[in-house]
């Protein structure tokens, strides 16, 4: 009697255990399936455009719905221009912050204040950045353009890059800070004991040591900038032409999708926009994966 009840209890527990483990496997596999399904959807939906346009998609500069001609080069250029410019401008600031927090002021009220400020910056939603950029940065840039004698659009590649700069500083700063903090004390102390100034230790010991981590941080920031949609679409001027200067209006891959997808009725246009999304997916994934690979290598050293 007792044995039967006990056996039944144990078997019941086993079944529950098995279904639980099975449930965990399902959850994990679902994640992989999700990603693969997303990639497949993008691929299959871009096929009409791939077939119709082929390589013209990459190097064509005309995005003409009337003529069914969709060259995405203006958006590639717009994306690369704004993202790289933003990265360039942000480097001195994020490096400064990471050195500030990682070397000079590791603890203390000043340090926690700056840390919270950086976290705040990272947390502000991008539509609010765009909104603020539209009302504050655009008039400023327009005033600058009028002084320089260029067409006073206010919106354009420069404004978008400025907004992006502010948005990506927290990302590269926090990663760089962690790497700088990880530099072994004895290395630094060796430099200092040889008579080097703090600056020289930073320049010749810390930065070279943390170089790959800082690079990874920059890559992740770049990936973020490339995929950013809302803030960019509100201040970039939404022109499908190849931008001629940083004061020109332009479009990025993300902003053209936001602008045109909701009403692209002609099938090739829809497929082309999805192909742009596919391109965006591929580019950001590659950048992210390279960045994370570097970080993994750095953390194991």
């Amino acid at each position, binding site marked *: 009697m007792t044995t039967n009840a006990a056996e039944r209890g144990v078997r019941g527990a086993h079944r529950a255990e098995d279904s639980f483990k099975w449930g965990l496997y399902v959850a994990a596999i679902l994640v992989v399936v999700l990603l693969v399904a997303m990639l497949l959807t993008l691929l299959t939906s871009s096929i009409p455009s791939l077939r119709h346009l082929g390589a013209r998609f990459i190097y064509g500069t005309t995005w003409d719905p009337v003529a069914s001609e969709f060259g995405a080069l203006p958006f590639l250029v717009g994306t690369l221009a704004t993202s790289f410019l933003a990265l360039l401008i942000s480097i001195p600031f994020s490096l400064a912050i990471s050195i500030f927090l990682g070397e000079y002021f590791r603890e203390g009220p000043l340090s926690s204040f700056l840390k919270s400020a950086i976290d705040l910056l990272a947390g502000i939603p991008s539509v609010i950045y765009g909104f603020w950029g539209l009302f504050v940065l655009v008039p400023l840039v327009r005033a600058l353009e009028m002084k320089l004698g260029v*067409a006073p659009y206010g919106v354009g590649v420069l404004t978008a890059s400025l907004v992006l700069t502010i948005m990506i500083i927290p990302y590269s700063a926090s990663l760089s800070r962690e790497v700088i903090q990880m530099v072994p004390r004895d290395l630094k102390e060796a430099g200092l004991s040889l008579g080097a100034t703090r600056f020289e230790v930073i320049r010749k010991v810390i930065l070279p040591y943390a170089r790959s981590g800082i690079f990874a941080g920059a890559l992740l920031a770049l990936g973020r900038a490339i995929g950013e949609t809302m803030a960019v679409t509100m201040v970039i001027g939404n022109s499908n032409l190849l931008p001629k200067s940083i004061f020109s209006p332009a479009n990025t891959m993300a902003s053209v999708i936001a602008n045109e997808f909701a009403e692209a009725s002609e099938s090739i246009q829809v497929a082309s926009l999805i192909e742009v999304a596919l391109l965006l997916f591929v580019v950001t994934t590659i950048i992210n994966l390279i960045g994370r690979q570097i970080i993994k290598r750095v953390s194991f050293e």
Partner: protein
Amino acid sequence: MKKATYLVTTSLITAMMVLGSCGLSMAGGTEILGAGATFPYPLYSKMFDVYGEQYAIKINYQAIGSGGGIKQLAEKTVAFGGTDAFMTDEEIKAAGAPIVHIPTCLGAVVLAHNVPGNLEIRLTPQVVADIFLGKITKWNDPQIVAVNPGVRLPDMAIVVVHRSDGSGTTFIFSDYLGKVSAEWKQKVGVGKSLNWPVGLGAKGNPGVAGLVKQLPGSLGYVELVYALQNKMSVARIANRAGNFVLPTIESVSAAAAVTMPADTRVSITDTSAEDGYPISGFTWLIVYREQAYAGRSREDALQLVKMLSWMIDEGQQFTEPLQYSPIPKEVAALADSIVAGITYQGTPLLAK
């Protein structure tokens, strides 16, 4: 953990219900979903508000542009679309089933500018085309000065603003430019989304109005209401008869004196009427002629048809206060017959 999550979730949901009941003005009822043109949006939003209150029904219209309206109707994600660019035969064929156009009002595409000094500016069709082609780049260009004797045009760059989304307003404007400028027709063409040679893009009529309002020296094309609501200066355009006409309810109505085809798909730009405003246009609501599709109930279809019927009849009283022109009597009669022809499983819905 389970308890905490449970508590948090229930309190969140309760909070939302409380907030929800605060703002609830209509109880239950069907919801009719529509999307499309921003051109008539101020009028529609007023009409739907009034109609909704009167008949206890919710109408959710999202102004995402004519192109969006056509696409969403074709994909059957909305019950009706709004567009100022009537669907072409190919577009209707691509949608798979016959679609009817119901004209709801007339409006004007105006050229709003932000030239300091509150100047009254006149433009000829040629000049307008050249500005949007990028050939004329400054306000004090001799061609503009020639048409505006006595007006102190500043030495400012013209910042062209156009639509970045698929727009019926763009269609009307480009249709006009295509008629008056062979170069435009060849280089850019007519359509809802164009390959603009120059200028900034903005989303929707409100976007263009917003940008023109912010940028001194800018020139953009918007529906009349948007220029009026934002107190923007509007240019006089020379029509075919040679008169420089301001867009008003009367000048737009004058332009609508054309013979209407049975399906009401007509363009009225570049009118030959003496006092007609040359960049006028109808705007339509588009629905499927056969309403039994995608699981729509007879009740849904009936509500939709009743709404359409109201809009071309009693709803017209809201057009003039908002600076739109009402549809002419003959057009209204035509529209009525089209609405009467909307069927559910073969039988017309409105037994008139």
